[in-house]
């Protein structure tokens, strides 16, 4: 039978079931239940829960554990994720897998503690300094939070890069029924690059992001970007809802996609041809799904809990072939289905 779980706790349990035994974190609302859950479970299963002195220390502990070849993760909320940017950049530059969870809250600065999607730019474009990307997943239900955790770990390992689950305070705090996966589904992949002691059996492994020769650094970055192209081709995910005949295509992810879907349903009841493209991966951005929907739509409408961050990617993905409008609330405000419906009506 399904169990009722908070999003934050479901993320934690899913990570454990995906084989993660090393969690390093720092308390911050609204993700703290995740760390609290880990502190309860990890000691009982021989894992590590460590409350670090800072977000910076926590992410670098993840770097160390990941360098040693184990599955490691950290979680935080917006201001804390800013601090983690350094470690994420180093992990990207060292080709290390890791899972970072951001249960977003309002910003900038200390901002607020209510749900927000104002870290889209940070997650998809500027998690840290340098030329790099990370995988970004955007669940919209507690069940999807569970499902995406193991996918995020698997793909992070496969492509040797950090992955982020970009959630928000609503998803973290809400309870929904979930089915949890069996523990230890897939066998962990070999990590011959790990710094875990060579045992006299091989050359020494170096996990490093420093390359003082420009041509060497350029070639490594280019190699990484070649990998990104493969990811863009193979790993895009989106839900396409009633888009086949939609005149107005709403584009929304995570919490705001739930609101948007409600509005699309209401629009259909009124006989308006509305549909929804819900990006599940924010990087790689699901350009294919958007182009399919945009090919026959009259207009697109990005709905976000921000001042408009994903909307630019929507325009880029469809190369501005159709008008792309925006509606958003920010600062912890959650748009209502009625507000979104009004926007749809205005575009039909």
């Amino acid at each position: 039978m399904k169990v009722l779980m908070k999003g934050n706790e479901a993320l934690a349990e899913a990570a454990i079931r995906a084989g993660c035994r090393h969690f390093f974190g720092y308390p911050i609302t609204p993700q703290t239940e995740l760390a609290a859950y880990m502190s309860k479970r990890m000691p009982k299963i021989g894992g590590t829960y460590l409350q670090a002195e800072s977000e910076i220390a926590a992410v670098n502990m993840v770097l160390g554990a990941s360098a040693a070849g184990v599955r490691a993760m950290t979680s935080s909320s917006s201001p804390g994720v800013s601090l983690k940017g350094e470690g994420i950049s180093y992990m990207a530059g060292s080709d290390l897998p890791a899972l970072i969870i951001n249960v977003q809250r309002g910003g900038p600065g200390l901002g607020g503690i209510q749900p927000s999607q104002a870290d889209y730019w940070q997650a998809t474009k500027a998690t840290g300094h340098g030329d790099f990307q990370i995988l970004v997943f955007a669940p919209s239900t507690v069940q999807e939070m569970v499902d995406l955790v193991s996918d995020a770990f698997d793909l992070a390992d496969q492509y040797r890069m950090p992955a982020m689950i970009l959630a928000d305070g609503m998803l973290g705090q809400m309870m929904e029924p979930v089915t949890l996966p069996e523990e230890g589904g897939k066998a962990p992949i070999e990590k011959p690059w790990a710094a875990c002691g060579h045992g006299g059996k091989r050359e020494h492994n170096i996990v490093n992001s420093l390359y003082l020769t420009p041509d060497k650094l350029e070639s490594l970055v280019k190699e990484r970007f070649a990998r990104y192209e493969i990811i863009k081709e193979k790993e895009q995910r989106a839900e396409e809802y009633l888009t086949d005949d939609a005149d107005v295509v709403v584009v929304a992810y995570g919490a705001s996609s739930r609101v948007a879907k409600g509005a699309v349903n209401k629009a259909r009841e009124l006989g308006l041809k509305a549909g929804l493209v819900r990006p599940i991966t924010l990087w790689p951005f699901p350009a294919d799904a958007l182009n399919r929907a945009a090919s026959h739509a009259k207009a697109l409408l990005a709905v976000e809990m921000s001042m408009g961050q994903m909307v630019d990617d929507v325009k880029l993905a469809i190369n501005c072939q159709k008008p792309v409008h925006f509606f958003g609330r920010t600062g912890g405000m959650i748009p209502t289905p009625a507000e979104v419906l009004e926007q749809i009506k205005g575009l039909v």
Partner: protein
Amino acid sequence: MQTVFQKPSVLTDAPMHYCPGCTHGIVHRLVAQALEELGVEGKAVGVASVGCSVMCYDYFSCDMVQAPHGRAQAVATGLKRARPENVIFTYQGDGDLAAIGTAETVHAATRGENITVIFINNAIYGMTGGQMAPTSLPGQVTQTTPYGRDTNTAGYPVKVCELLSTLDGVALAQRVTVNNVKNVNIARKAIKKAFQNQIEGKGYSIIEVLSTCPTNWGLSPTEALKWLEENMIPYYPLGVYKDVEGGVKK
């Protein structure tokens, strides 16, 4: 022919980039020697920090990880928690350990993290060209204290061994130097003990090595050693600051 001297196997053949008269080379050798004597090269993972010693990952033949500036002990914590059977050490300078990485240092120490920390204190930022370090002496002229370190505005040096020895998680805190044969021998024993402690699960061990930076001090190698003896050792007395025989782990 009889071999009377050889390079420890834990050092690679890569030519070191350190300046003439810099003591990094000696300390590298002492670390390598300790790992070799304890027979843990195959289990050792070193953490290189940001600073002159950043490229020590090329010089030690054990597995190596290069950490963000100041975060070496957080990275070491992750490595050790992931694989407690490994022997983990950090190799950090004063800017890394006692300025940008102060929080990571203090908290790894107070957690009694079972790692070995090699701390090079040369009272200056070497890699970036000779700016004031947290351990620069009062009155010391550096690129960013051109009139000498004014304690009214730039504050006082951080005495790392003294500071850390107040923490219950620290098993061993010792300050050594490598200015002469006698002191090199003391340093050799201290570094070996710091690794031995980890192997025995005793907890956090730190060896602070007073070191020279002839290039950025603007002195010849010989003058640099003399400056260290006359200025640094009086301010940073050598010795054992803390040594918990049974370790700090219950």
